[in-house]
């Protein structure tokens, strides 16, 4: 989709690489290795922080335990707001994983000087700036809301497609495709665009000028993580509740 665009502005400054990947061959599949490396790093960071936070659980939380409890509370409130008091609890882990993974990926991509590490091809960046990652996450959300809908309403979940009128059937079916599409492209586009803008600005004016854009990028990244998690929760809630014929609430 995106071809290599070597932007050679000056022989001193390096080229800007887009669409170049570190390919790993695995059973005939070409994997984007740099994405995997950063994904594992993000996962590792999250796991290590979680382990540290829960290693010595105190009654009155302090330090990292307090911070992680604060994060958990935030995620729980997010899920509760979207899904509702009655059903939200089993979905907290999923929503929380989405939020934390995307958030740490985005901020990791924006804050860690990945360019210090040189790869044979491509360069390390936020995992979410690769469309494969975001599509995977969005498809997980699709699976999650189908599962939620079928679990809650059984075969009656299909009634959702002809609500409020059967005329809406094509649009409702289309929605199942547009949801993951919009989710994945929104996240991917925002993160990639942010990184590109920063990279281009850094190429043009290396010092101080990219700062506002970088700060803005941090803000956008956080918001995108929030949006992804919130929308996933909202889709799950929608699948469980249906448009009309609410049994509760």
């Amino acid at each position: 989709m995106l071809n290599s665009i070597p932007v050679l502005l000056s022989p001193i400054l390096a080229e800007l690489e887009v669409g170049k990947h570190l390919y790993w061959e695995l059973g005939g599949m070409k994997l984007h290795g740099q994405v995997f490396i950063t994904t594992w790093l993000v996962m590792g960071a999250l796991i290590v922080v979680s382990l540290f936070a829960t290693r010595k659980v105190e009654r009155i939380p302090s330090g990292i335990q307090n911070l992680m409890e604060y994060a958990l509370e935030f995620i729980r409130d997010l899920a509760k707001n979207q899904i509702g008091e009655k059903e939200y609890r089993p979905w907290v882990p999923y929503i929380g994983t989405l939020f934390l993974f995307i958030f740490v990926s985005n901020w990791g991509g924006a804050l860690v000087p990945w360019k210090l590490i040189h790869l044979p091809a491509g360069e390390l960046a936020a995992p979410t700036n690769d469309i494969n990652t975001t599509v995977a996450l969005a498809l997980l959300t699709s699976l999650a809301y189908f599962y939620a809908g079928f679990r809650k309403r059984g075969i009656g979940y299909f009634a959702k497609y002809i609500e409020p009128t059967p005329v809406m059937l094509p649009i409702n079916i289309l929605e199942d495709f547009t949801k993951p599409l919009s989710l994945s492209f929104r996240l991917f586009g925002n993160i990639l665009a942010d990184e590109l803008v920063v990279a281009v600005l850094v190429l043009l004016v290396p010092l101080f000028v990219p700062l506002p854009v970088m700060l803005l990028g941090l803000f956008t990244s956080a918001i995108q993580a929030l949006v992804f998690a919130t929308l996933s929760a909202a889709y799950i809630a929608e699948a469980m509740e249906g448009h009309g014929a609410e049994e509760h609430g």
Partner: protein
Amino acid sequence: MTTLWFLATEKGGFGFHFDLLEANLINLSIVIGVLVYFGSKFLGSTLEGRRNTIEEAIRDAERRQSEAKAALAEQQQKLALAKTEAEGILKQAQENAQKAHQAILEQAQVDIERMKASAAQDLSSQQDRVVRDLRQRVVDMALADVQERLPERLTGDIQHRLIDKSIAMLGG
């Protein structure tokens, strides 16, 4: 100022690539500095507040627990007291009942004795009266019989003899 060195020999390998400008190090350190400075302030106060709230809540809960415990102990003491009191009352009542029982029995015994005595007395006095009546009647009947038969048997001749006999007895 480009410093390049590779852990791998070729340009294509993995390596460490130190370039102050290209790696955007200055900007990143500024951004991280800003983030740490403001973030730690905001996050610090938020987390401190959260910690204080939790501490407060725990202390409050503990205080209420101890209060409840104290109240429970107090009430249990009261309960024990009431139980002993109830036992005392029960014992007292049983004693009283026993006493009343005894008293009533004794009274009844006394009454029976008295009634028996009075009945016996009654019987004997009745008997006496009946005997007296009977005597009276026998005497009356005998007198009447005598009076009835006296005139026909007490003739002049007999009267004379009687008087003579009496005189003879007197004079000898």
